[in-house]
Structure formats: C-alpha cells, structure tokens
C-alpha cells in the first residue's frame, strides 16, 4: 500500500458560475516532489490555496495523513508556503522573519536563535540576518522565504511559482538548490509552475492541468515521451502532430494511414482498433532528415527555414498538407530553404494518441 501523504477527493472550487477546479482526485505521495503544471488560469494557485487553507473547497475532501483537514484553519495545518512575491514581512528583519513561525509555536529564545541560524546557513544568508527585506535582492528574498517556510520543519511545503520573478540564471540555480533541499530533508513538496522545463527539471511527478481538470499525472519522462492527450503533447515541449486512422497491424506495429496521404509504422497501442482516428506525435529531435527517402515512415518535405539556435539547429519543413519541425545537431549540415528532402523517424519514436 502506498503511503499517501495528501489526498484530494472530489475537490471542486467554484467562483460564481466559474468552475475553477472540477472534481479533482489527486494523491500526493509522502516525500515526493509534485509539480502542478498548466497554463495561466488553469486553477493551480486555487488548489494550493485550498491545501494551505486560505480558501475553502466548494465540494470535496482534503486528507492529510488520513485525517480530513477541510475545517482546520491555516495556522494549524503546519504547511510551509512560499509565495510568488515571497510575502516577507517588511517591518521585520530577515532573522525576525525566519524566527516568526518558531515564535508562534512558543519555541524558546535560545532554540529559536539556533534554528534560525541553521536555516539561514542552509540558504547561505547568515550574513544578511539583520537586513530588512527591502534591502535584499530578489534571489535573496526568495531564499529568506524558503528558509522561513522550512525552519519549522513542516511535513509539506507548498510553493506557488516561487521562481517566477527571478532571472533565468538565478532561477536555474534555485531549481537545483530546492531539488537538493528536497532530497536532503525528505519533504513533500507541491510546486506550482507554468514553466514546463522547470517542472521537468525538478519533479518526481508532474500533474498537467487544463481548465481545472488533470490531463495527465506521471513522471517527467512519461509526460514527455508518452503524453496522454493532445493538450499535454503540445504544452510540454514541442511536437509534430499528424492526423490519420489506424489502417491495420503488422509485426507488433500499427499502420496509420495519414490524412495527408502516406503510411506510418508506429509503436502499437493495443487499445486502438483498426479504423480509429488517431494523432501520431513525434518530437522534433527524433525526426531524421535525408536526401534519399527512407524505407519506412518517409515523408517528402521542403525545407522552409533553417535556424541556428546555439545548441541545436531548428529546421522548419513543409510536408504534404502540414508543417513539421526537426531539431538537428548544431554541427549537422544546413539545408538551404527550398531543398526537397525526406523526413523520417523510427516507429518506436512515434507515440499515438486520440485526437
């Protein structure tokens, strides 16, 4: 039996007629790093607010360690929260901010000092403990917020786009830092983001949200390689989509007749019967380009553009009735626009979903 730390059971949140979260069922495993990923307005913050107790679920139940917590006020939930804008207390010093949760729990003076120091050391801010938040950079404020949310050793830490306001470099550094802290402290972290690469980098599992519903919840690898829906396929990374229908099966592979003409051989998914309309998805980096047509899965294309992007080469293609994108090694030969070539990919690199 899996040790569920948090369970949301049929949780719904409505604002007037608007269903922001719709009958959500979600189990969060103890010690896991779960990202809630979705476009703006998909209800991620709302879920976090309900977990933290800042908002009430309209319907449904939230359990922590098997106990229903719907009616427990925020201040007794013992969850650390890191806000996007950090929400540091402007009238307190860094040390006072970090000491606040301990003071609220009636911890003794000496122990507070020790634990605050340890927490500040952990985020490398010990030198700035007497500053006020206004005198800190964004990244430093972020780390104070983190220290404050961790210092009272909550079992769960909720983070709402905590890195959104940082520049790219600092953000990537913090991503690794937080991941490292997570591993070291064995925390359960629920992390809201709308940045897919951030989610892929940090998470044990990712829940992809769309309009208040979970489209897919799985490991980063599964989400990326085997997206469950068109929405996930398009939202996480870039992908080529080709519409067609299952024409038959052959040697453990499925045959797809594309609407644009041509046949594809793809990895079979037994649940799709012949005649079923499907979408074949291929990631750009799995697309091979060659002058001569390949034996299977060969699509004649014309190069429309070839863009050097530093670490790779992005080649835009116009196939029969649809556009494709390929991502090639930066050292690969550049194709001049207008060149007539062929795109191809291995059957196991093509993932079939329903449209």
């Amino acid at each position, binding site marked *: 039996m899996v040790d569920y730390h948090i369970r949301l059971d049929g949780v719904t949140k409505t604002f007037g007629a608007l269903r922001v979260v719709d009958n959500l069922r979600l189990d969060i495993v103890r010690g896991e790093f779960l990202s809630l990923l979705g476009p703006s307005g998909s209800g991620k913050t709302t879920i976090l607010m309900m977990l*933290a*107790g*800042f908002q009430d679920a309209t319907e449904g139940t939230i359990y922590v360690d098997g106990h229903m917590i719907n009616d427990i*006020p*925020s*201040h*007794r*939930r*013992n*969850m*650390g*929260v890191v*806000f996007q*804008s950090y*929400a*540091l*207390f*402007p*009238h307190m010093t860094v040390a006072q901010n970090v000491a*606040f*949760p301990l003071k*609220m*729990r009636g911890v003794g003076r000496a122990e507070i000092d020790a634990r605050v120091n340890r927490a500040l050391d952990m985020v490398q801010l010990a030198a700035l403990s007497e500053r*006020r938040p*206004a005198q800190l950079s964004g990244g430093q404020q972020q780390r104070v917020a983190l220290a*404050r*949310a961790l210092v*009272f050793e909550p079992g769960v830490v909720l983070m709402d786009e905590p890195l959104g306001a940082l520049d790219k470099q600092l953000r990537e550094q913090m991503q690794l830092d937080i991941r490292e802290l997570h591993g070291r402290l064995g925390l359960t972290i629920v992390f809201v983001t709308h940045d897919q690469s951030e989610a892929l980098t940090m998470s044990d599992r990712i829940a992809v949200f769309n309009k208040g519903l979970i489209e897919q919840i799985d490991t980063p690898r599964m989400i990326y390689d085997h997206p469950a829906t068109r929405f996930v396929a398009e939202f996480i990374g870039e992908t080529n989509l080709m519409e067609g229908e299952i024409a038959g099966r052959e040697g453990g592979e499925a045959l797809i007749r594309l609407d644009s003409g041509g046949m594809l051989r793809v990895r079979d998914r037994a649940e799709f019967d012949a005649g079923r309309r499907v979408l074949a998805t291929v990631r750009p980096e799995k697309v091979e380009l060659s002058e001569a047509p390949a034996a299977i899965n060969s699509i004649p294309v014309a190069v429309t553009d070839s863009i050097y992007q530093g670490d790779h080469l992005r080649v835009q293609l116009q196939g029969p009735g649809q556009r494709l994108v390929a991502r090639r090694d930066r050292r690969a030969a550049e194709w001049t626009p207008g060149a007539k070539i062929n795109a191809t990919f291995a059957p196991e690199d093509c993932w079939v979903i329903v449209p």
Partner: protein
Amino acid sequence: MAGKLISAVFGVLAVCFLLLPLVVILPLAFTSSQFLIYPIPSFSLRWFEELFTTPVWRDSIVNSLIIGAGTTILATVLGVLAALGLREKLNFISAPLNTVFLLPMVVPAVVLGVGMQILYAKLGLSSSYAGIIIAHTVIAIPLVIVSVANSLQGMDTRLELAAASLGAGPAATLRHVTLPLAFPGIMTGAVLAFAVSLDEVVLNIFLAGPGQRTLARQMFATLRDSISPAIAAAAFLFIAGTVLLTLLVLLARRRFSGAR
C-alpha cells in the same frame, strides 16, 4: 510671456491670501500691548503667562488636553476595530455602515448639537466630560476610519496569509502583522482625532457646562467680547502643537516606510 507673468502674480497673491493670516497672528502672541493690533510696542511673554496662570485659560487648556486625549483613545479604538471588520464583505451590512460611519463628517455641527443636547438631557450626560468626549468622538470617527481603511487597503493581503501559514492565529496575525503595518494610518487617524477635538467649538457650546470649557471654546468666547492678545498666544500654542503633531506623524511614517 504675459501669461507667465499673470500666473506668477496670481500665484504669489493666492499664496499670500492663504498664508498671511497664519503668519500675522504669531508675532502678536509676544506683544506687550493690551490690544490685538500692530505695531507691536515691545515683546513680552505676559500673554503666555496669562494663559498659564489665569484659571479660565489654564483650566481650558487642561480640559482641552483631557478631552482631546479621551477622544483620541475612544475614536482610535472604535475606528480601528471597525476598519478591520469592514474589510470583510458582509451582505446588507457593509455598504450602509460604510455610509453611516462617514456621515458625521457631513452633518452640520449645529444639527448634531441640537440632537445630542436633547439626547443628553434624557441620558443625563449634559455638562460632563464623558458627554463631550463622546460627542467629539462621533465627529472624529470618519477621519479615523478613512485613514485606517486607507492604510489597510494598501497592505498586501498575502502577508496575512503568510502569517497564518506560519502558524499565527487570527489574534497573533493582527498583533504581529496587521497592526504594525497599519500603524502609520492608525497614527494619522489618532492625530486627526486629537486635532478635531482640539478645534471643536460648536458641540461644546451645545453640550458643555462651564466645567468643560475647552481652549477653543475659551478663544471663541474671548473673541466675542474681550479681544485680548491671549488669543494670539493660544493660537501660537495651537500652531506649535499642530507642527509638533505633524512632525510626529511624519516621523512615524518615515520609520515605517524605512522598514519597507
């Protein structure tokens, strides 16, 4: 060019019109003359002495301070509590209360004076400190509410959520987060309440007995019959007090904006 000149002349004249009265009254506080007129024959502190030694003036200063302090405390406590409560939207209650709490600022003082005089006769509050403090509080409330509400509104509500998530209950959040952050607004409200009380005359005429004669009321009476330079000395105290209070508020604000 001509336009610029006209603007400049108008600006100077208007500033003079606004400030001249405040300027001319101050030197007269130090006149040695019997009369409230220029030129000043020689400077003396006799009118301040009069202010602090004659029982009518001295008592009126004491009364002003007692009543002002009472009003400040009562109005600030009631106003802050209500401003906190008014942040929550209560159906059918919030909107009308918002209006009613501001109305004392609008209703003419004489009208309120008549009503309160009749009420006080019934309740036996006429000619009592409590009665005057209550009356001053009524008209000070709108100013307190507005300044506190403004500062509460300017506050990031996520700070309170953060406090809750860190284990602070409603009372602790109020004490450690909300009130400290609203402090500049509370301070402003308190000072305004004090200023209103200090300056109030009309309600005093209706409700106070000789025992509660305030400095403003005494100035009013003196202006009416025996125009003595003691008025200028009292005015000097008023202005000095105002400047002092303003500095106090600015200081409090500075301290807290420095904290931001």
